[in-house]
């Protein structure tokens, strides 16, 4: 095993001795992460649907008005259980026949992942509002997810608007009442009083505030990217693409070494062929991991939230890099010259990357292209990343794509190891 590492490290040393390779592993992919991330910032992957529960404990006209405002505020935020059924892409969050939303049920639905967040309108909401006392709404969500952020912003916007309206209504009601008792002499005093009241009413604290509470949610299987972050797409996508380019470069190196006689020379040293090939594959593997480490770190710096799912990210990366390392061996077995290997490797990457959703999310391409795209290992890698980033998926949720990647890798590995010619 030590000799396998010696070979891999010697190869990496040779690789990074070439300054231009640093460029291909760091500068260039980072530039693309930035460009593609900015291009896709804020654009959604299909209809983004964020179901939330609103638990109305007040049951007043004022609380009903708040629900009404939320229903129409943002089409992507679905307010359960009030949402009209039959709404396009409405998620399955209606209550069962005869069921009413209680605090316990709401908590259960949040944990189960039926909804992304729960907003509680406390009893006494309308009374406090009319009295001009501050009111607190309670918003509970899993902070590891980005989707609830959208819901919270929507609620904040609605609440600000309602709050403003409430204050205005209260002030004018008071003004109307006051009209009867105003005489010409008191006019100046009246204005001064109204001005002071208005200022006090608008000043902090705002009449309605939203308190955020945290809750742990089960991973969700809701489709549709809730909060589509451009940098999440671009850091994962470019990592998958550049890892493929750089790892497939191994094929040309292997063929070159066979031509230069260093591969035959390795074979007369007292180590087995599998150790030699193992060292070469390890070189590819480590380079692939390095590429992911760099670009995912860049993604994290740009605000991509890998949340609590780092282990799932690691599992996906390990599986995907295995697949592309195996592809490199298969390419080395099929190509005859180093030039051919480089050309085919570049061609493969430049086909598989856009096809598999490395450049843009597959959700925006037609259905048949989505199906076709899954011929590319990158599509399975990106599926897994989307599951982790947008749906809060953990290892159990990415097992499917990971198994596909491992199976594809194993097939390439078997082909490559069997067909590769050492002499």
């Amino acid at each position, binding site marked *: 095993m030590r*000799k396998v590492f*010696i*070979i891999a490290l*010697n190869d990496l*040393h*040779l690789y990074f*001795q*070439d300054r231009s390779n640093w460029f291909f592993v760091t500068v260039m992919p980072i530039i693309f992460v930035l460009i593609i991330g900015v291009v896709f910032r804020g654009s959604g992957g299909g209809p983004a649907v964020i179901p939330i529960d609103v638990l109305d404990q007040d049951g007043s006209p004022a609380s009903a008005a708040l629900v009404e405002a939320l229903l129409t505020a943002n089409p992507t935020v679905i307010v359960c259980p009030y949402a009209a059924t039959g709404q396009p892409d409405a998620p399955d969050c209606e209550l069962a026949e005869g069921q009413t939303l209680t605090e316990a049920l709401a908590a259960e639905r949040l944990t189960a992942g039926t909804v992304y967040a729960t907003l509680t309108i406390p009893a006494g909401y309308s009374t406090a509002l009319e009295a001009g006392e501050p009111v607190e709404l309670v918003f509970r969500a899993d902070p590891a997810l980005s989707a609830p952020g959208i819901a919270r912003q929507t609620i904040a916007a609605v609440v600000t608007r309602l709050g403003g309206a409430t204050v205005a209504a209260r002030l004018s009601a008071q003004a109307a009442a006051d009209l009867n008792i105003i005489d010409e002499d008191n006019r100046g005093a009246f204005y001064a009083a109204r001005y002071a009241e208005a200022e006090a009413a608008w000043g902090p604290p705002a009449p309605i505030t939203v308190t955020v509470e945290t809750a742990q949610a089960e991973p969700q299987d809701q489709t549709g990217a809730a909060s589509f972050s451009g940098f999440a797409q671009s850091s994962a996508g470019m990592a998958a693409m550049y890892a493929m380019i750089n790892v497939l470069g191994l094929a040309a190196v292997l063929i070159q070494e066979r031509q*230069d*006689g*260093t591969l*035959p*020379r*390795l*074979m*007369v*040293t*007292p*180590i*087995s062929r599998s150790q030699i090939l193992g060292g070469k594959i390890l070189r590819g593997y480590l380079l692939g991991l390095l590429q992911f480490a760099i670009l995912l770190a860049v993604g994290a710096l740009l605000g991509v939230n890998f949340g609590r799912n780092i282990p799932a990210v690691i599992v996906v990366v390990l599986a995907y890099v295995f697949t592309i390392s195996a592809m490199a061996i298969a390419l080395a077995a099929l190509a005859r010259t180093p030039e051919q290997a480089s050309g085919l490797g570049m061609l493969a990457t430049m086909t598989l990357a856009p096809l598999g959703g490395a450049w843009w999310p597959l959700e925006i391409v037609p259905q048949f292209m989505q199906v076709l795209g899954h011929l590319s290992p990158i599509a399975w890698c990106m599926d897994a990343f989307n599951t982790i980033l947008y749906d809060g998926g953990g290892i159990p949720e990415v097992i499917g794509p990971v198994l596909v990647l491992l199976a594809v890798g194993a097939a390439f590995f078997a082909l490559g190891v069997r067909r590769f010619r050492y*002499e």
Partner: protein
Amino acid sequence: MAPIIQTRDLKKQYNPPDGPLAVRDVDLVIETGEVYSLLGPNGAGKTTTISMLSGLLQPSGGEAIIAGYNIATDPIKAKQVIGVIPQEIALYPRLTGRQNLRFFGQLYGLSGRALESAIDEVLEFIDLRDRADEKVEKYSGGMKRRVNIGVGLLHRPRIVFMDEPTVGIDPQSRRRILDAVLELKQRYGMTVLYTTHYMEEAQELSDRVGIIDHGVIIAEGTTGQLIQMIGELDQIILRVDNQQVPPAMLEQFGNVEGVTSVNQQDGELTVRARRGRKALPDLITIANNAGVHISSVRVQEPDLEAVFLHLTGRALRE
């Protein structure tokens, strides 16, 4: 004591079933401490034989035992005692000489101080101390060759395979390499299997020589034994360039006293005779009478070249 290298019916056919039979039924027996040369023209099967002995190529038949280990069934152990110096330079050009030595040394299981002192010793041996930390791509051809040799010696192998190490280099570097081979034998007691198509090298270096042609060892022994085998004949080489030589003249050559054979190849007549210098005046007279102009004359005492010519009817070098 058992021979350190022994092969039985070693065969290699490339791309069977129709590919060329590069090596046929080679039986080698080489004793510890011997320098053994495989002498043969291009394409004779020298590299193929060495590749099979070093575990690089799978033989199509037969077996090879190296220091008691069967190379087919016990390759790792066999490879540990062999140092291979390939015909073509096989180094990482972007690494320095020292880095190349270190990398391959590690693969032979050397590490730490043992590795560093082995590297220093080898650098001394190949006389490359002062340039060791430059990249190989900056070396001259001769320096590359020397590093190429050094890599094969790092782990102090008991057996060294050297495949035509002097091809394409200047006479000075060549001299150094030949001296190195003798030093490996005399100072380190190594067994050397050396291949070449230069008969002078084989003659100078070897305890024994195997002459290989078309994959077959056609003769084997000390230089003296091989020359004796062809009857210690002198060779008279007459340069006639591209003149027409009448068959009658060749017949008359054959009748001169002491002459045993006459050969014509590449504008040269090679006459083998028991006492060449005595036959020479008669040969020149006959040629003059036949109207064939002789532009130069050489008389060669018997050597391995003559042996090869005698055995194959062809010159070793074309």
